[in-house]
């Protein structure tokens, strides 16, 4: 196995790593960096459990070669809020019973964050589309959709109240 150096930003910090050529970002995060908040469900891009944010867009870390992250900005669930604090999405998922077994939750929250960063006032259909690549098998999508809409509402400034 050949190793190559990769420099990228991980949860706002500079990260320099040697990764095996052909290995995935998912493997780098979990097996090298011990960031287990990113989950492995299918290794083929169908379940969405491994979703991370790269340069502001959701990406499947199981289908992203680690060395292609050179110079990129990567955010995982661990980087969503400072230690001890919670992002409004995390709070809404907790309050609304939107995480039962919890395995799809990291991917769901990150997919939702990408939506809200781009569109702070999404419709229900836009929320459904945002998590359409993330499979949930036990919580059920309804509480998840409700939690994302609740978080969005809370994050919008009072001045931008919805008509």
């Amino acid at each position, binding site marked *: *196995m*050949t190793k*190559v150096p990769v420099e990228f930003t991980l949860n706002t910090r500079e990260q320099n790593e040697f990764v095996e*050529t*052909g290995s*995935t970002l998912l493997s780098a995060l979990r097996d090298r960096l011990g960031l287990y908040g990113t989950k492995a469900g299918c*290794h*083929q*891009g169908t379940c*969405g459990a491994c*979703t991370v944010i*790269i340069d502001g*867009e*959701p*990406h*499947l870390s*199981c*289908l*992203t*070669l680690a*060395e*292609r992250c050179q110079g990129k900005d990567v955010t995982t669930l661990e980087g969503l809020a400072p230690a001890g604090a919670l992002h409004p999405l995390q709070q809404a998922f907790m309050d609304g019973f939107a995480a039962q077994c919890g395995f799809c939750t990291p991917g769901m929250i990150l*997919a939702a964050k*990408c*939506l809200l960063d781009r569109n702070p006032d999404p419709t229900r259909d836009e929320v*459904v*589309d*945002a*998590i*359409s*690549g*993330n499979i949930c098998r036990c919580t059920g999508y309804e509480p998840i959709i409700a939690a994302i809409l609740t978080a969005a509402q809370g994050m919008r400034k009072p001045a931008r109240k919805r008509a």
Partner: protein
Amino acid sequence: MSVTLSAAKQARLVPAVQAKGGRIIAGGTLIVADLNYGADSVALITLDRLGFDKIAVKGGKVTLGAMVTMAAVARDRRLKFLHPVANSIGGPAVRAMATIGGNLFAPAPYGDMTAALLTLDAEITLHDGKATRKLPIETFLAQRRKLQKHCVVSISFAAPSAGTFHYVKVVRRKPVSASVVTIAAVIPQKAGKIKDARIALGAMAANAIRARKAEAALEGRKLGNDIIATAAKLIAAEASPADDAYATAWYRREIAPVHFVRLLAA
């Protein structure tokens, strides 16, 4: 298994690497899934540094670089007619990764964008190591395996007149999943008669195909329920769908006419 990755510095250098067994990795949504399940050793080559991620729209002619992502298409206001197509491909994460160029090589049941491009009579620009060539998309698809050894640069087509482009992707899990059947159609009309109808099907053969018998049934006729029903009977005449995890070949043949009618009657 050993995998190496390098970034191509010029398109003309890519085919030489491919001749030695190298493979282009675009968005990686198909290749990396293979690697994860134990593919053989391979030299991967990216087109990341070639500036193939540009979208150009000039005088009604659209040129999409091979590395343009589905997300980029879905965000481009000049390409509104293609938004339903781009947004039907995976969830947002797949769309942020999957490319127009990669979609040309996607095996069934994938390749929905290619079905749409087929109805637009798109032209593929590729580099064979010596020179750039232009191929009609249908010719390209017929030689797809061989052309994997060349480097796709861009895809160009004339934007369809307003209201003439139709698209539906039938899936088991809403809003998105792999295709059961995908139907794209351009139905232009002149003096109240259909002229140069083009219909393409995805997931109904190894790659996207034209439904020429259904097209012929529409040609020169006035668009109406009777003629749509007649064309619908022929929609799968040239298809050879497969059984897979999403649907059986039988089911695909059964529902293709139903969705064709709904698409055009709507």
